[in-house]
């Protein structure tokens, strides 16, 4: 390998040339090195030559996928590939043929250029069972699926390591010391290996579990489970040293102990367990069919007389298991943050739902942004349709009957929304309106793509793009004064085991844009409570205050997070277009606690 030891940063720079990410400064540095050092240029040429060959090795296949059948062997350059020859020999070589060749070549050259630019991604995933022997790689390697998940994997040796997204070729072996590895076959079968475990992919529809545990879930893509005799797809099967477990639809677990004993358990559907010593033919084979909740162990039986050491004496027997092993059925990756826009729009915080909201006067879901007035009825409204949202409310002027505003379902209440404030040395009472406009709304980043060209007349759209409030490009939580929403942090902790909300982060702002009464200016207060205790507030917030970052820490046992807006000191709730940009709950492992 060519090296240039005098420039320790050269490898990183050359890699960035090939793989992207070179900054202007780095380019300048690389140019200086390459200009002065011929050995560095040799290293550059070497990297780029291999880079070009690697790109070329796979690229023609991607390119041709737009125009050729995938089964057709790949010529090196489709625009100039040899012409098909149904033509008669007298025609070939004639002037008409030459003209045709010239025309076709030129057209294909141009079309080849188009194919470069517009060809869709080549999807290696789409090779069905019936073509399981079809090659997917340039060297006739058969790929049966992909690695679709990993968790805390420790490998028995370097040779068996892999990464998420990697293709899984036939004959590939995975040896885990610990952790979980998920393989998804092209047939739709999904296998979770649980370390310690050694598994070899020995067919397009199964594998050999030498030792350890796995869970297999067999689904057809799109429509339920595959059943025996469904025709085009062979049944998924796991082989072990003592048994063959064939899936008849749905989900099962297999554990192979160090001595080869195999325990099978069915979660859903049925399997057939065929017992037999691997490598000794079918003699003595027996089989049982198991249904959901059933388990069986296939174990070796060794005779105790003198010949017991010979292979022919190996036998197996079925044993009912008193307590089946525990299997991991899902590869769970706890979220690093929860998107509050997704939650407000009906999701669980890990998705990207938008353009839904909540009516703060009822707690019901809004599917359209209605720019109407909502008046407080002095009640806290539980949100029944979403476990992560405790409820909503509209802050109101305290009355004799309702002296405090209830802000969560546990009864916590607050009476400070209406208060006296100094303005130019004069004590002035700021009274909340008890009204809001348009509900609590999760707006998409691009209002036009979100709603098309219609129905964007509400304030949440009229306020403009609001880019300054969403640096992460997630979207806006619209909370026109005066309104409030309370999230249930405990429900989130229960759902996402192993992590907890550790802080609430957002960028707040007050939108401003073309409106009916330009002389009006918005001014609003923003309040954040945890379990009824005021943790943060910003009073008399205006558009000119720009965007403000908030990061409210949350403790492990905090139950409710309440966000509220009220009209500011100007006494009117008009144009109080408060938005929380990119609102998220940052999640932290529950085992890591801050002092």
């Amino acid at each position, binding site marked *: *390998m060519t090296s240039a030891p005098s420039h320790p940063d050269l*490898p*990183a720079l050359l*890699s960035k*040339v*090939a*793989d*992207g*990410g070179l*900054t*202007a400064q780095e*380019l300048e540095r690389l*140019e200086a090195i*390459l*200009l002065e050092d*011929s050995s560095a*240029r*040799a290293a*550059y*040429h*070497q*990297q*780029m*030559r*291999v*880079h*070009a*060959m*690697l*790109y*070329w*090795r796979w*690229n023609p296949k*991607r390119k041709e996928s737009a125009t050729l059948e995938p089964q057709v062997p790949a010529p*090196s*350059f489709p*625009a*100039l590939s*040899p012409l098909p020859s149904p033509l008669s020999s007298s025609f*070939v070589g004639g002037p008409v*043929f*030459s003209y045709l*060749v*010239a025309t076709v*070549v*030129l057209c294909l*050259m141009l079309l080849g*250029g188009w194919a*470069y630019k517009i060809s869709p991604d080549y999807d*290696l995933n789409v090779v069905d069972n019936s073509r399981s022997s079809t090659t997917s*790689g*340039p*060297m006739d390697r058969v790929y049966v699926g992909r690695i679709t998940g990993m968790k805390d994997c420790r490998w028995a040796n370097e*040779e068996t390591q*892999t*990464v998420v*997204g*990697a*293709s899984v070729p036939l004959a*590939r072996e995975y040896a885990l010391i610990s952790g979980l590895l998920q393989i998804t076959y092209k047939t739709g079968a999904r296998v979770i290996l649980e370390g310690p475990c050694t598994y070899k992919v020995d067919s397009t529809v199964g594998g050999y579990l030498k030792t350890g545990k796995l869970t297999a879930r067999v689904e057809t893509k799109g429509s339920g489970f595959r059943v025996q005799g469904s025709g085009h797809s062979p049944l998924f099967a796991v082989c072990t040293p003592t048994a063959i477990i064939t899936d008849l639809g749905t989900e099962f677990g297999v554990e192979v102990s160090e001595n080869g004993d195999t325990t099978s358990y069915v979660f859903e559907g049925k399997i057939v367990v065929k017992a037999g010593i691997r490598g000794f033919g079918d003699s003595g084979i027996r089989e049982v069919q198991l249904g959901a909740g059933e388990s069986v162990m296939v174990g070796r039986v060794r005779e105790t007389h003198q010949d017991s050491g010979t292979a022919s004496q190996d036998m197996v027997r079925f044993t009912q298991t008193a307590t089946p092993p525990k299997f991991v059925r899902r590869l769970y990756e706890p979220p690093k943050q929860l998107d509050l826009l997704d939650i407000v729009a009906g999701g669980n915080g890990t998705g990207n739902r938008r353009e839904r909201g909540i009516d703060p006067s009822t707690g019901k879901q809004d599917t359209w942004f209605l720019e109407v007035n909502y008046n407080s009825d002095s009640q806290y409204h539980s949100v029944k349709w979403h476990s992560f949202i405790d409820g909503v409310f509209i802050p109101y002027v305290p009355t004799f009957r309702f002296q405090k505003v209830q802000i969560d379902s546990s009864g916590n209440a607050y009476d400070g929304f209406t208060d006296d404030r100094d303005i130019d040395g004069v004590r002035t009472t700021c009274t909340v309106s008890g009204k809001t406009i348009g509900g609590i709304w999760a707006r998409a980043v691009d209002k036009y793509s979100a709603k098309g060209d219609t129905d964007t007349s509400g304030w949440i759209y009229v306020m403009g793009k609001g880019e300054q409030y969403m640096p992460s490009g997630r979207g806006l939580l619209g909370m026109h004064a005066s309104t409030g929403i309370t999230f249930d942090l405990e429900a989130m902790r229960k759902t996402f085991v192993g992590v907890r909300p550790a802080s609430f982060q957002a960028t707040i702002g007050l939108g401003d844009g073309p409106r009916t009464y330009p002389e009006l200016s918005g001014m609003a207060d923003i309040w954040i409570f945890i379990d009824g205790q005021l943790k943060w507030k910003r009073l008399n917030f205006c558009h000119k205050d720009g965007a403000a970052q908030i990061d409210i820490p949350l403790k492990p046992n905090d139950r409710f997070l309440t966000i509220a807006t009220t009209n500011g000191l100007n006494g009117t709730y008009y144009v109080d277009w408060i938005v929380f940009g990119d609102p998220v709950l940052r999640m932290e492992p529950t085992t890591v606690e801050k002092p």
Partner: protein
Amino acid sequence: MDRLDPLEAFVDRVTSAQQGLFAYILSLVAHVDDAKDVLQETNLILWRKREEYRMDAPFWPWAKTIAHYQILAFIKRRGRDRLRFGDLLLARLAEDAAAFDGQSVDVEQTALDQCIEELAPPKRELIELRYSDDIGLAEISRKTGRSPGAIADALYRIRGQLADCIRNKLTGREEDR
């Protein structure tokens, strides 16, 4: 009977030179997308100038010269709209590449196929992610949980290993003769 029509022979030579031309162009423009654009333009010029080419002359030097001019025209046309090498370095790299033999790329490609097969599975899968799946560093980093810098370093080393392997195979092949 078996001799190709001149036009067919020309097409055959252009076809055979594609990979070498791509590698040559990429070594000077550095960006894959740019290299593909220049290769297209080079192909068009080769086609337009087909009458000027004498079939008994070596094809590769002629094609490489045309590709070189297309590279210069491309860089002049596109300016510094993205990070590119300056003129002086480009000239140096072109001097180095004067001996670039595009005709040997086919042989090297065969060796490369074998060398990829000999890579340890994790390395082979990383290369496949990068090139077969055409996934960028950031995405690979996200999938693997390793930093982009670590991935870039690994890819650099693997490419170096493949270069060594190709050289060894080709040297061994020559020694076998």
